[in-house]
């Protein structure tokens, strides 16, 4: 460690050493830009001159051409335009669902770790029960019961995937709740809530934040799975998974419908996983 270097500076310096991680980070940044600028990128008179819902029956199921670079779907919509707009759905769901699980997991984990006893017992049993359900059954069930929409998907994914975060935070708080700075905070009269949220949680959050990159990856994966199964964002809104659902119907002759959105999902999910993995290694005090 260099003199005067913060933990984040050190982590970043180690992270940068992995070329793959830097490529993944650049790719994710590009995807975020595409998602942000989607209405400017894919619309009439834009670089990709088609809107995501511009139907053109005369050109349905066309293989990639100079005009439709990723081909067209069963209604003649431009696949590239739909993918550009689909990036918005994927990233929105990925980040929001992870934020929800981060908040829920941190609060429950903090209560369990700080108070121990009954609070710990209840949270631990809750996690045990949640882990018994096959994840997709639970998410599919919640989404279907409360009508599929962008919001139900984000909430269902967020409320079912906080167990990792909760365990992390619980463990960290158990470790640091009796350190001197925690006693000091209590000694000057800080209330429990202040001790937990001002003093302890910020010190426990770094590893959790890093691992939430995996959470984003899995939320994107599950959103596309839900859309593929027809329980995702309602049609005609473009989503990578729903393009793949159309691809399944035309599997005999339209390879481009399956190929391009799948590559997009795979690269995005893989990037978030690689980023999480390399950040975790970079923060690990046991590595050099």
């Amino acid at each position, binding site marked *: 460690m260099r003199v005067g270097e913060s933990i984040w500076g050190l982590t970043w310096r180690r992270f940068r050493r992995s070329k793959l991680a830097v490529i993944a980070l650049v790719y994710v940044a590009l995807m975020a830009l595409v998602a942000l600028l989607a209405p400017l990128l894919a619309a009439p008179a834009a670089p990709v001159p088609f809107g995501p819902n511009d139907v053109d029956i005369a050109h349905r199921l066309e293989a990639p051409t100079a005009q439709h670079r990723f081909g067209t779907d069963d209604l003649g919509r431009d696949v590239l335009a739909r993918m550009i707009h689909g990036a918005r759905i994927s990233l929105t769901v990925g980040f929001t669902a992870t934020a929800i699980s981060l908040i829920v997991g941190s609060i429950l984990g903090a209560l369990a770790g700080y108070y121990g006893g009954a609070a710990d017992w209840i949270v631990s049993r809750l996690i045990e*029960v949640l882990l018994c359900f096959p994840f*997709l*059954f639970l998410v599919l069930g919640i989404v*279907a019961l409360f009508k599929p929409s962008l919001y139900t998907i984000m909430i269902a994914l967020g409320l079912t995937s906080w167990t990792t975060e909760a365990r992390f935070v619980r463990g960290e708080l158990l470790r640091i709740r009796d350190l001197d700075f925690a006693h000091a905070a209590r000694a000057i009269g800080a209330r429990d809530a202040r001790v937990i949220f001002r003093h302890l949680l910020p010190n426990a959050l770094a590893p959790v934040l890093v691992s939430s990159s995996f959470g984003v990856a899995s939320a994107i994966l599950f959103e596309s799975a839900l859309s593929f*199964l027809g329980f995702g964002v309602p049609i005609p809104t473009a989503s990578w998974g729903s393009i793949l659902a159309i691809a399944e119907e035309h599997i005999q002759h339209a*390879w481009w419908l399956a190929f391009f959105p799948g590559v997009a999902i795979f690269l995005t999910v893989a990037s978030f*996983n690689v980023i999480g993995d390399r950040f975790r290694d970079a923060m690990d005090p046991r590595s050099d």
Partner: protein
Amino acid sequence: MLSYLIRRLAYAVLTFFGITVAVFALIHSVPGDPTAIFFSARGRPPAAILQHIRHEHHLDEPIVAQYVWWVKGIVTLDFGKSIFDGQPVMAHIAEKMPNTFVLNLISFLVAALLGVPIGLWSATRSGRLSERASAVGFFLLYSLPSFWVALLLMQFFSVKLNVLPLFGMTSDDYLQMNAAQQLLDRVRHLILPVVTLSYAELAIFARFSKSALTEVIRQDFITTARAKGAAPAAVMWRHAFRNALIPLITLLGLTIPYLISGSVIVETIFQWDGIGRLYFDSMQQRDYPMVLGLTVTTAVITLFASLFADILYVLADPRIRFEEAR
């Protein structure tokens, strides 16, 4: 040991009630009573009939009484009747379960028998290029969406090369075949679903066994074994591998819900007649007794698996006691 077993069983019973409360709370947190959900897709019947249905299903009783009726049903394996065809939910589940079991068991074995050796091997090559390449490889495998892999496999092997069946469990002329042909036909139908269901699992097994072995190699008794002059291969085989395999037992409980989740996607795409596809179809038909029955059944299966894994773990490694296992 006995007191551990008793406590572990008590927790399992508790978790079982947690599962039932969670599912019951979920269904009751939907606005309106269950009849509203049941009939939302089919139009509401007249008030008198509705009253009769509500009475028959105990929906006119207090919420706690409703819960008790519901749990009584579950304990006696009675999940009610399918709305779609009026047959008992349990009969449907029992009919489809063997198909899912076969598919999941084969996928589990493929994943374990390939993933564990690969993981152990890559842990012994720590720091070399092959180890780092395999670590990235596991990640990429793990990031592949299964439904996309399924589509690509179908496109390549079934449509382009036409060597494997597109979907289904048997061919149309299955009944006219002799025994050997029937077996071959079944195997041919299994290949693509098993590949789709097992590759991500394989990556998990490989990563898990790799980190388990890496953990063991760091410990003092390995250094001791090396210091006393044992051959490197003997250290690996006699000391390290055995201890690295013990944590794999926990994967038994963890992977079952994972496999069942995957079954929903794989069985739907390949039209495999198991509980994953049954769940998906019931969801589309809004057959809620079926959905509830399947959710509780699969959660209870997971519960048994993790109970079994925990007990096995203690038997395999006497150092572990209940509190540490938490």
